[in-house]
Structures are given as C-alpha cells and as structure tokens.
C-alpha cells in the first residue's frame, strides 16, 4: 500500500483528497474505492467529501467511522434516512435488513421509495442509493426479517444496531438479541407528529421498561399514520446517537428517553434509573 499512499499524498491538496484522485487511485492500482479511502484516512488524508465533517470529526475519527459496521433493522421510514445519513457520514459498512418491497403507501415518507421502486425490495433500493451517494461505503443488503433465531447470524460484526422497526414485540426481541450479543442498540419509534429515541447499552433495560405496559398491537401510529417529517427527525437523532457511540464521545440518550412532539414543538426527557443498581445488584 506504500505506492498507493505515495500516489495519494502527491495528489492531495493539503490534507484533502479530491474525489477524482480517489477514483484515479482505484483505477491505477486496481483496488476498490473503499480500499483507497481506508489507505487515505490511515495516511492522515481526508477524502474531500468529508471536509465539512470537520472540526467535529477529525481524520482519525473519520477512519474509526470508516472501520465501523452498523446494522439497520427496517428500511422504511426511519431506516431509509438512517442509511442515507450514515453513508454520507462515512460509516464504512452498513447492514440493511428488511424483508419488504416498496408499496404505494410508503411514498409519503420513505426516502428510498419512488414510483420506480414500487414492488422492488427495500434493501435493494438501499444498496443502489448508497452506491450512488458514497461508493466508499459497503451496503450489505439482507432481504429477510430479523428474528431471534437469525439475530446472531445477521448482526454478527455490528458495532451498533439501529432499531427502525415498526413492531413493538420485534423491538423487544431485538433488544434481547443485542444484549446477548453485547451490541449497543439505538431505539427509535414514530407515530403521527410524535416520536421517541433511547440508546441502550448491553446490561441496560430501558427499552424493555419503555414498553412494560404493552400488551398487544401497535401504538399511536395505527390511528395517526406517519407524515414525511417525523421519520426524518427521529432518524436523524438516531444517527447522531450512532455517531457518538462509534466515536465514544458526547452524551447519549442512555437511561433517558427523548419524547418528540412536533405538533406542540415540545421535547421531553424521561429519566430511567438503572434498575439493577437501584435494586442493589
């Protein structure tokens, strides 16, 4: 990789590597764009597409993001935006999991859906979109439903799991799987003008307590539907949580739920005491 490094250093403008140089290196040395990107970042060069990530994210942190794997469970309203934002952020590998195809009622909010993608698998649309916007990012499409039985196989290697599901019992199962696999999980849910986000680390039980009153069925989304803007807001908050977990910095929504009310434009925080510790573990 020394030759590649030398080439990139010569092509760089200061410490910024323009996209055309990334392409040229890929062709010249017959390596993938992803390999060029990793070499550049490891050499202290920042692909120019990320220059506005600075100063918030340094070159070494950009490399940490590039070497990260994030699994998104559900590629609908929330998942579509999360995938878009993670790919633009520069997370190197995204595992997209969803069994469904796009239907007409998705068009009001699901960013990966277009009239042309109706009837096509959501994960395929995700792969095409990511290849289009950031070819350095690898999207692994899994057209299957997450189940407790396949959880270990499909979430293997993920540094963070993003809950973009639309089913409460499936979420509760996912929280269990993430705990078993020792993977942090970012929970998001929406309904009408409302949404919520929680970040759960292995050993926490906030998500389980969030739904401790749940008996059956869906939440307010059944009555209120989901407009275009609520998934965008909640997905963006989820992505910010993922970014902080991957970089190990900032304050996450651990042990607290953010309740988002876009109708009255109010944001509420609900604090969850750590159960096990409170009970004298």
């Amino acid at each position, binding site marked *: 990789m020394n030759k590649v490094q030398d080439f990139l250093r010569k092509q760089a403008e200061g410490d910024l590597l323009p996209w055309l140089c990334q392409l040229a290196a890929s062709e010249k040395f017959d390596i993938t764009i992803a390999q060029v990107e990793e070499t550049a970042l490891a050499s202290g060069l920042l692909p120019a597409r990320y220059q506005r990530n600075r100063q918030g994210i340094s070159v070494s942190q950009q490399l940490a993001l590039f070497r990260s794997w994030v699994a998104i469970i*559900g590629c*609908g*309203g*929330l*998942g579509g935006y999360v995938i878009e934002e993670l790919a633009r952020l520069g997370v190197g590998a995204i595992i997209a999991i969803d069994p469904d195809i796009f239907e007409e009622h998705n068009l009001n909010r699901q960013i990966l859906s277009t009239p042309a993608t109706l009837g096509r698998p959501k994960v395929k649309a995700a792969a095409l979109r990511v290849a289009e916007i950031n070819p350095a990012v690898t999207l692994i499409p899994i057209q299957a439903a997450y189940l407790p039985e396949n959880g270990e196989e499909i979430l293997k290697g993920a540094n963070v799991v993003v*809950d*973009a*599901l*639309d*089913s*409460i019992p499936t*979420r509760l199962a996912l929280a269990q799987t993430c705990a078993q696999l020792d993977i942090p999980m970012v929970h*998001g*849910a*929406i*309904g*009408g*003008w*409302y*949404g*919520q986000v929680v970040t759960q680390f292995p050993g926490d039980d906030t998500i389980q*307590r*969030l*739904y*401790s*009153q*749940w*008996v*059956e*069925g*869906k*939440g*307010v*989304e059944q*009555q*209120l539907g*989901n407009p275009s803007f609520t*998934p965008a807001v909640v997905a963006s908050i989820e992505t910010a949580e993922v970014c902080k977990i991957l970089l190990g910095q900032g304050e996450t929504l651990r042990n607290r*739920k953010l*309740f988002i*009310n876009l*109708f*009255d434009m109010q944001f*509420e*925080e*609900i*604090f*969850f*005491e750590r159960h096990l510790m409170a009970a004298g573990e």
Partner: protein
Amino acid sequence: MQTTEAFQLHETIQITLKLFATFRIGRFTVASREYAKGTNIAAVIRELLIPEGQIGTIMLNSRHADPDRELNDGDILAIFPLVGGG
C-alpha cells in the same frame, strides 16, 4: 392538636397532571388535581379513562415510574401514549 390529627385522616394531595400526544384529545394538556392520600398512578389513569393498553411511558417528577407507585403531594405526573411505528 386533635383537630389537626382528624384533618390529616382525610388529607388530600395536590398533583399536577400532564398528558401527551393523543391523550390530550378530549382531555387536557396540564391540570392540577386533588386526590386522596394514598392514591396510586393506576387509579389516576383509570379516572382519566385511558385504556391501559395505550399507555407508553409514565413519568413521575421527570423519572420513569410504574403504575403501582403511590403519589405524594406536589408530584408532577406525565403520561405518554405508546409509540411504535418506523
């Protein structure tokens, strides 16, 4: 002294109730209400005619609480509906 003790037997507590999202429809956003001492959260929810299955999070003084929790004078109780879409 005896009158004070007798009064305490019927002591009431003042609670601030906050409802969120769909629970506001036909009810209120914030209200101050009086309850008998010893009233728990579940009793307040029943009085508000909120079906148990629709309850998401219960927050007592900014902290998550379970329905069997007994209320104290001056408590702020907030009730959020279940949100589960994606």
